[in-house]
Structure formats: structure tokens, C-alpha cells
């Protein structure tokens, strides 16, 4: 089990931990409602060191990475980030990847279903001599998310942070080292991932925490991110991704380049695309009080037609929401299905995302 360089900092602040893809992660720090409010209304700092992080020098990186992921790495402009995925030979999801073109290097952050060694082996198999550096243990990843996340980033690295567009990368000096900052985030509020050397990780976390507190926020764990992602309809490989594994049924075609000639799973995915997939993922909301769990079945006219693959509490809607796999012919929003039995509580399929986050109502570069 890999331990984050930020483990002791979060433990000292009362965090509870869980294992995610072979990495010990700070699951929760405060009450879930308080953590949620911090992100939606202010800012919360969390340990995102469950990401596997790889760096590769510019020369040769494009060829290697293009052989690994479904997106088109050659099209990433300097300073920008591609969101794509890695699949296995059968076209099943392995990792959700950010790939950043950081001038003289490519940086890859993976949220994966495999442990560090297995992911490293996939990279090495694609390009053993490409100068690959595995930063997963030597660095930590700090996540700063929320409506006021920009204020923390600005205090840490200066006002030019505000000019960074979504899905971009920049390097900043910090305590004699370099922090790689990616503007990304999967909460639907402003978000930054800070890749920091382990030796500077605690100092960065302390300063980010202090700045977050000044802005009405604090620390949070990764568990609340699962709820925030689902509410904002950001893909979560640890929830619906792990349950379904098929990128086509999950609606991840936007992460793929269908013209690319080579990457693991390409043939299988193109075959399934040509044949037409039978089921796909749909959002739903449950009535107050209904007990919804992953694996709950959805019924129509007395027969089971679908299954719940992800569940979260939507604090904006005031009810449980989730994602279900349904036959394509029934995968439309606005329909009612009985849950767990033909006389069970009725859930309603909904259009996603069901909320309008505050961060989408303002322009960050005008703050």
C-alpha cells in the first residue's frame, strides 16, 4: 500500500482513511455536509495523491502516449491538457487520464483501477526507452476545489493563475522546488491539481489550508468528491467506471479519437461501436426516504430492466441521485421505474447534470 506524502498532515487534522487503487487516501476530514458546503460555497483542500503521476520528456512522449490512451495526444497544444482514458486489450476501462503538454515534458495523471506497479508496467510496455519517470511516490497531489479555489491558487502562486483556462498546465516555483499546477477539477466548481515534490508537500498543504480557511473553507476528503462528481455528472472511474468498464455504454466517446490507428482496446471498441451497444448509463433521482444502493434493480411492467451503478446524495436537489444502466431503448430522461421490486418506490430518470454550479455563473479572469 502506497502512503501519500500528505498522509501525516491529513491524519493530524483528523482525517479518516481508505484504500483506493492501492493507495491510502484521506477519505473524510469533516462532516460530509460541511465538506460539501465548503466546495460549493468556498474552497476545500484534499489529498489527491491516489493519482499515479508520470513524466516523460517531450521527445518520444507523443508516440508512447498515443499507443497507450484513446485520445489524440499529438493534438495537445503547449500548456494544455487532454482528458482521456486507458483501456485494456478487450476495451475495458483501466484508467481515467489527464495528459498535459508541459513544454519540455508530458505529464500524465491517472485515476486507475490498477495499482502503481500495474500501471507502471503498461507505460513501460509502451515505451521502455522513452525516459519515463514515475513520480507517484516522489510527489504528492494536492487538490484545491470550490467556488473560491481561485483565491487559494492566487495566494499561493500569484495573480497570473487566474488567466489559466480550464484544462491547462503551468509550472510555479515553490520553496526551492517546482509545483506543476493543472487547472482541472471534477466537482463542477473551480479546481486545481498541484503536483508537488514530497519534501515540499506538507508546507504547500499548510499554506493552502490556511488560505482556504481565510476564504471560508478548509480540508476535505476524497469521499465527498464522489458525491460532487455525480451531482456535476463528471465521470468517476471508482464508481460507475468500475461497475460498468465499457467506455461506450458510459458515454465516454468524447474522450476517444476514432481515427487513431493504435491503442489498447481499439479493435474491441470499434467492433462494439459498429454493432451498437445494448445498454447505456442514465441519471435518476429517487423519492425522499427511498433506500437506494449500488446494485439496486430498476423494474418496468413487472420485469427487471436495469441496475444502479452509482449513488450519491444531492444536497442541491435534496434527494438521492444516481446512475443506472438501462437498455438503450429505455435510456431516456423523464421515465419512471420501480426500484428493487415491481411495487417498490418509483425513481425518475433525469437529465444530467441536474445542478447549476456557482462557478459556471462567473468569469474567473474578471475576479
Amino acid at each position: 500500500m502506497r502512503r501519500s506524502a500528505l498522509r501525516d498532515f491529513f491524519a493530524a487534522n483528523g482525517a479518516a482513511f481508505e484504500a483506493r487503487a492501492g493507495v491510502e487516501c484521506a477519505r473524510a476530514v469533516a462532516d460530509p455536509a460541511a465538506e460539501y458546503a465548503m466546495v460549493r460555497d468556498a474552497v476545500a483542500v484534499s489529498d489527491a495523491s491516489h493519482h499515479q503521476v508520470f513524466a516523460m520528456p517531450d521527445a518520444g512522449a507523443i508516440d508512447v502516449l498515443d499507443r497507450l490512451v484513446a485520445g489524440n495526444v499529438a493534438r495537445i497544444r503547449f500548456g494544455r491538457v487532454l482528458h482521456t482514458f486507458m483501456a485494456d486489450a478487450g476495451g475495458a476501462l483501466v484508467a481515467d487520464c489527464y495528459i498535459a503538454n508541459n513544454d519540455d515534458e508530458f505529464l500524465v495523471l491517472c485515476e486507475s483501477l490498477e495499482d502503481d506497479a500495474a500501471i507502471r508496467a503498461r507505460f513501460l510496455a509502451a515505451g521502455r526507452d522513452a525516459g519515463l519517470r514515475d513520480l507517484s511516490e516522489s510527489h504528492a497531489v494536492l487538490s484545491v476545489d470550490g467556488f473560491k479555489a481561485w483565491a487559494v491558487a492566487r495566494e499561493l502562486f500569484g495573480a497570473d493563475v487566474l488567466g489559466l483556462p480550464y484544462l491547462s498546465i503551468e509550472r510555479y516555483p515553490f520553496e526551492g522546488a517546482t509545483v506543476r499546477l493543472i487547472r482541472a477539477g471534477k466537482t463542477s466548481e473551480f479546481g486545481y491539481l498541484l503536483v508537488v515534490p514530497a519534501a515540499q508537500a506538507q508546507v504547500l498543504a499548510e499554506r493552502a489550508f490556511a488560505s482556504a480557511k481565510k476564504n471560508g473553507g478548509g480540508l476535505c476528503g476524497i469521499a465527498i468528491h464522489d458525491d460532487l462528481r455525480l451531482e456535476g455528472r463528471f465521470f468517476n472511474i471508482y464508481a460507475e467506471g468500475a461497475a460498468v468498464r465499457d467506455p461506450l455504454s458510459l458515454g465516454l466517446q468524447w474522450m476517444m479519437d476514432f481515427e487513431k490507428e493504435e491503442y489498447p482496446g481499439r479493435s474491441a471498441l470499434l467492433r462494439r461501436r459498429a454493432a451498437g451497444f445494448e445498454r447505456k448509463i442514465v441519471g435518476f433521482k429517487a423519492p425522499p426516504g427511498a433506500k437506494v444502493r449500488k446494485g439496486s434493480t430498476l423494474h418496468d411492467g413487472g420485469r427487471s430492466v436495469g441496475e444502479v451503478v452509482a449513488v450519491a446524495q444531492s444536497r442541491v436537489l435534496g434527494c438521492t441521485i444516481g446512475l443506472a444502466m438501462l437498455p438503450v431503448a429505455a435510456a431516456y430522461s423523464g421515465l419512471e421505474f420501480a426500484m428493487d421490486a415491481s411495487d417498490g418506490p418509483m425513481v425518475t430518470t433525469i437529465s444530467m447534470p441536474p445542478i447549476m454550479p456557482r462557478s459556471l455563473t462567473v468569469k474567473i479572469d474578471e475576479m
Partner: protein
Amino acid sequence: MSEQNQKLIERRREIIARLKAELIKRLNLPFQPDDLHEDVALLGSGLGLDSLDALEIVLCVENTFGVKIADDNIAVLRSINTLVDFVMEQKPNGGAS
């Protein structure tokens, strides 16, 4: 499938098909209609469209379905499904203009 659900599906399917075809054509998207999940984010994450594309989407919906999207109604532009919801609310008895 109940008769009510079936009617809703047929209406929704027709609007989705028209909207996807128009979006692919107008925005030159490198996808087939079935590649576009109805919940995928249109702007920023997901398809990663920009503010000029947003304007094109507004014009597309207005011209195809004869409904007007207010300038400040950005919530409607979040996904194909939110656009379809808007069209169905504005034209409860029919789809295309």
C-alpha cells in the same frame, strides 16, 4: 413499457435525433449521433466547446425548433438532454418548427 413512457420516449427520441444531426453538422463534430451521450457536457469539460460554439448551439436550437433561448439561460446549454428538456417545455405539443 407503459403507454405514457412510450409516448415520452418517441417524442424525446425525435427531438434528440434532430438536435444531434444539427449539432454534428453545424459544429463539425467528429462523431456519429450514437457517439454523443445525451448527458455529455457541451461546454468546458466533455465536448469542450467554446463560447462561439455556444452561440452556434443557441442559433441551432432556435432555428431547428423555433424556440428562443434567453441570453442568461446558460443552464440550458449544459448538455443535449438539458437542451431537449428546454425544447419539450417550450413546445409541449410538438418538436420541429
